[in-house]
Each structure stands twice: as structure tokens, then as C-alpha cells.
């Protein structure tokens, strides 16, 4: 069965075309009209579908169901024969728990948030000096020109700082239990897709999610989460037939315990490894996505605890930092800490 699923964002329309269960294609149709007044949205859908038809050489109108979800669907309800869903309703019922970060809204597990970003807090994540005025201008411009992508290192650092603050601001009053998250979390969204490097994404997430226990993280590299969730919502059987073709990348797992710990690691080799990891550290071991690692955590202040996790592109990370991270320290100390954490995951930083 063929179907077209459109994730209609402010900056672009991301389209997932299922030609048949073994064959799917992705297209991104840039829009970038957030600032342009009086856009005739009635014809917007025509444009998007026609682009997909041209790029795929497949006739779509009248030939297959069209599903639309996204941040930007307001004007599209009631138009033609399309199925329109809110992002919230499709993500909430998706098979994996999600962390989806869009321009104005953040979805985590089954909740929706509207984060407000404080420029002063953004500065705390930067290892270079950016004036308050300049930073405020940048943040405000990003609201207008949400389609732009960070080209230079500093822009990239600011994007990752915004990502962290969106998560922190949204979830600061929310208590959630990592032990109840039984499946890997899929991280996605327009902000995530601009943070290209897996190490950076992983670090951004674990810097800002406050929890203890284990968490496995998948990365929606092709930004198809909303498409997949809409298909799953509409026809779960079809979704299951295409799932293996979706590019959810296993980033790895994090085990978070904010104490001095000793980790007993069983990689399935002759001997188990023992690692002493002091409090307020990050330590990673390379483990691929198909390898199951058994870990026993010992600490003076709690009973031993067993975890079983799969690895990924980043591996398995032990995070003994106290959360939320305290960055209200003198600038030099803060930069030193940020550098140390990045290097422990093999990342460079932009100064």
C-alpha cells in the first residue's frame, strides 16, 4: 500500500513516501516562509505534493492517502482529501517514547511543553564570550528565520546550548522515572537535526535530562519521526512493514548515578572489566549497537544495581555528574568543566 506522510514544519516540509513496504523515499521541501506575510497557505499543500511528484516521478494526488502532521498544520484542516493530525496526538501514541524538539514546542514522553529561553543561561554553555546584546539578537532572529542552519562553530555551539536549555526549561518541574522508560527514547526535531554530530547530540541530551538509572537513546537522523508516527497512527500494520527502513540511529546508552562508583562491566569476554569512576565525571566505553553489555554498579551509598544495555555510535556512557548541572561557577572553571566533558566523549569544542 502506498502512502505519503508530510511533517509540515515552519521551515520545511519533510515528506516520507511509502511506495510499497520495501521501498520508501524521503524528501525535504524547504519553505522558510516564517517571516513572509500573507502566504497563501491554501496552495501550499499543492506545492509540496507537486514537488514530491516531480522528485519521485510518482503520481500522488488521488492515488494514495496523504497524512499531515506537524507544527504548522493550522490552515490545512478541511482541505481536500487529506488526514490532518496534531504532532501531539501522533507522538503520544508512538511505539517509542519520544523527545522531540521543534521551534516553539517540545514533546517528551506523553507531554507537551512550550519552553522559554533565557539568554543568560545560554551563555553559561558557551566556551567563548558572546555579548548579551548579540546573543539576544541571535536568539530572536532564530525565531524569525527558523530554517537557517549553523555554519560556523560558534553558531553550532549556540544551537546546542539552545537545545539544552529547551530541555531543561521544559522539564525542570517535571518528575519522571527513567526506570519506567522501558524502551529507548527517540530524539528528534528541527533543533536536533541541526546538531549533526552524534556525540554532540548525546552530550546535549544527557547534560539536560535529569534522571538516575539507565537510558538508551536513538537518534532520528533523517527527521522522519513525525512521518513515521503519523503512519503508525493511521495504519500500524503498514508502519511495522517499513520500520526497519527508518534511519533511527542507536547512539548508545547512559548510566547515570551521581556518586563515586565502581562499574563491573561484562562485555561477554573472558574477564569482566572494573572501572572506578569518581563523582562528577563522564566516562565512555566503545560498544556497538548490537552488543549487549551487563553492568553492575557498586557505590558506598547504595546497594549494587544491575543494568543491561546495548551500545551505539557513542557507546555506553557512565555519567556520575550531579544533576541539574551547576554552571553557576566562575567563567574559567566553567569552561574547563565543559571542555573536560566534551573531551571525555571524544568531542572537540568551538571556541
Amino acid at each position, binding site marked *: 500500500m502506498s502512502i505519503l506522510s508530510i511533517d509540515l514544519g515552519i521551515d520545511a516540509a519533510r515528506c516520507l513516501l511509502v511506495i510499497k513496504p520495501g521501498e520508501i523515499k524521503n524528501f525535504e521541501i524547504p519553505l*522558510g516562509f516564517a517571516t513572509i*506575510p500573507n502566504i497563501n497557505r491554501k496552495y501550499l499543500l499543492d506545492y509540496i505534493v507537486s514537488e514530491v511528484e516531480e522528485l519521485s516521478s510518482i503520481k500522488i494526488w488521488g492515488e494514495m492517502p496523504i497524512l499531515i502532521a506537524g507544527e504548522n498544520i493550522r490552515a490545512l484542516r478541511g482541505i481536500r482529501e487529506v488526514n490532518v493530525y496534531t504532532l501531539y496526538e501522533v507522538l503520544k501514541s508512538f511505539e517509542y517514547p519520544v523527545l522531540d524538539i521543534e521551534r516553539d514546542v517540545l514533546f517528551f514522553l506523553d507531554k507537551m511543553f512550550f519552553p522559554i529561553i533565557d539568554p543568560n543561561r545560554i551563555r553559561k554553555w558557551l566556551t567563548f564570550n558572546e555579548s548579551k546584546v548579540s546573543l539576544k539578537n541571535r536568539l530572536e*532572529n532564530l525565531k524569525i528565520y527558523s530554517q*537557517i542552519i549553523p555554519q560556523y562553530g560558534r553558531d553550532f555551539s549556540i544551537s546546542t546550548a539552545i537545545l539544552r536549555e529547551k530541555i531543561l526549561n521544559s522539564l525542570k518541574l517535571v518528575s519522571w522515572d527513567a526506570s519506567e522508560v522501558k524502551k529507548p527514547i527517540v530524539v528528534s526535531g528541527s533543533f536536533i537535526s541541526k546538531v549533526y554530530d552524534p556525540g554532540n547530540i548525546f552530550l546535549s541530551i544527557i547534560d539536560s535530562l535529569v534522571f538516575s538509572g539507565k537510558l538508551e537513546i536513538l537518534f532520528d537522523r533523517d527527521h522522519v519521526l513525525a512521518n513515521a508516527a503519523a503512519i503508525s497512527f493511521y495504519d500500524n500494520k503498514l508502519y511495522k512493514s517499513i520500520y526497519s527502513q527508518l534511519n533511527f540511529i542507536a547512539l548508545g546508552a547512559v548510566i547515570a548515578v551521581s556518586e563515586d562508583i565502581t562499574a563491573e562491566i561484562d562485555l561477554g569476554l573472558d574477564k569482566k572489566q572494573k572501572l572506578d569512576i569518581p563523582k562528577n565525571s563522564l566516562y565512555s566505553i566503545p560498544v556497538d549497537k548490537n552488543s549487549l553489555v551487563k553492568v553492575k554498579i557498586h557505590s558506598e551509598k547504595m546497594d549494587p544495581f544491575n543494568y543491561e544495555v546495548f551500545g551505539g555510535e557513542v557507546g555506553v556512557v557512565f555519567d556520575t555528574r550531579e544533576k541539574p548541572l551547576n554552571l553557576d561557577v566562575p567563567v574559567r572553571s566553567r569552561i574547563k568543566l565543559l571542555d573536560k566533558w566534551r573531551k571525555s566523549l571524544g568531542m572537540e569544542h568551538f571556541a
Partner: protein
Amino acid sequence: MKVAVIKNIIEREDVYIERSLPNDGIIFVKKGDRVSPLDNLGSAEVSYASVAISFTGSLKVSVGDSVAENDVLSYGMKRLKREKVLSPIHGEVYRIDNKEKKIYIRSFPQEYELISGFEGVVENIAEGRSVLLKSRATSVPGVLSSGFGVSGELVVFEDISGEDNRKYFEGKIVLFSRNFSEDVYKKLVKFGTSGVVVGGMDSCILEEAKNEKFPALLLYGYGKIPVISKVVEYLRSIQGRFVILRGETKELLIPKIGKKGTGNEKRDEGTSYLEGKDRKLHSLESSQLIGFREPVAGDLVQVFIRPFFGWEGEIIKIYDKMIKFESKIYAHAVRVRLRKNKEEIDVALRNIRILE
């Protein structure tokens, strides 16, 4: 990969403009009347000045009295000397507050004529107060404003550091084409400028403008962003004309003068990418977006990357494959020669828009 094509100067055939009297008065026109820019739509009696003067001793005037400038309003004693309080203006005493010891005088009312400023048709009337016109105008759209509007004569400046004569600014709407700073803002306000149009300004200056109810229109965003040359050239060509800075719709409106079209002229339908008459991507006359197309060498573009945010340039090369940027992001890109300093930079397609 296609890129948005934008118009920065838009011809609009259906613009609704309200022209209002400052006080209740008389409206001369009626619904359906055709008007031209110099027509008088209505009039009212307006006092342009009002003062409150503290007095001592005994009053020499009462409410309803007419006074001339320097007429004695009261006599009192101060340090054993006789003190006179004089009227600073010609006018009428309209209130005396004996408790606060203040005299309120307003200037004699003068006739205020409500000049149309636009050619068009009277769409509606608020009796004694305002006229709604349907007209044609050229619009220069922006992205942000302080929320307030004003109408008046347009003047264009690149630099005002050497300007000290307020007569060039007072009561006028200023297009400031270069980097707009706090100092420039303060100077314009001090000189009695009615409103300002800029490429961009710092967010803190816009906040100040909002608090002070000062009409400001930002064409491209926040920061020191120059106005693109085509817009500067156009506005320079109409300098001295009556314009409206509309805060709520974030645009500058310039009345069109001359024969209204017959309706048979070719209108800009925008670029059509679809087949079938009912699947055209229309460019509304009021829409800034014309459509989307593949960029070509020679295209004039606006770039949205720091430190060249909002700068214009020309595409000199289109990369066949995605390139890797310093941020480690891979993207389709072009090489742009910036107009301002001739520097050549690589820019991701997501970070440009083509200027029509």
C-alpha cells in the same frame, strides 16, 4: 534544492487606509466617493498647545478669558518683591485649580484639514472622525515593528553623525539605511522624528521604542542589518513624499499616484510549478513570496549567517555536491560575493533567499 524567491517592494491594488481627524469634526466625503491625494476629506478645530502654569498671589484671569502671550495672569509677593506670572502663549484659560495653584491655558483652536494623501475610493466613514479608503499602494514589508504607526514625509539617511539641524528630521519618517545604533535612535527621538525604518536594530532598542510608543519598522530582523540597495534606491527616489509606516501590519506604504489600471495589465502570478489550472501557486499581490526555484549564478540573494546577517550578494558558484561547514554540518551550498565588501563566502542554501 529550491530556495524562496522574495519581493522586497510589492505593488498592492487593495490597501485599506484609515485617515482620522485628531478631534471630532466634520467629514466631507461619503461612501463610494472617489478621492485624489490632495482632496480634503474633513476638518476639525484643534488646539496644538496646552500649558499648565503655577501661580501665586491673586489671579487676574478667570475661566473662559482669552489671553495673549505675556499677559499677566497673577500678582504675588516673593521675598518682599512683587512677582508677576505671565502667559507663555496666546490662548484661552480653560481651567483653574486653586488647590494646586495652577492655571491651564490652551492655544486658540485652528482648523485642521484631513488631507487624503492617497488616491482611492471611500469604503466607509466613522461620522465626524475618520474615513476608510480603499487604495493602491507600494508596500515595503518588514518583519518586526514597535507596533505603532505614523504617517508623514519620508527622508532617507545613511549617516546622521554630522547632522545637527532638527528641521531635517522633525515630524518626518526616516529610512536609515546603514547600521542603526542606540546613539542614532536617541538622536532621532531628540530631533522629533516621527518614525524610523531600518534594516535591523538591537532587540533592546526595539524594546525601548515599544515603551516610548515610537513607530519603528525593522525590515529584516535584529542586529545591525543594512537595508538592501534596491529598497534604498526606490525609497530615495520617492523621498519627500507622504508615506504611512504601519506598525500592526509591519510595512511601509507609499501611495500610488496616477491612472488606475484597467485590470487588463499582466499581473505577476508568480512562478507556477504545478500543472492544472486549479493547482497554481499564486503569489498574492500582498505576498512577499513569489515562489521557490533552483538558484543560478548571477542571482541576487540575501544571506542569513553571522556576521553577514541580512547582507546582500551575488551567487558566483553553485556546488554540485553537499559541502561540509565548520560546524560539521553537510549542506547544499552556493558561493556568494557580498556586495558590501566583495568578500566571497560559502552559504548553505537554507541560509539564503533570492531577491527578485
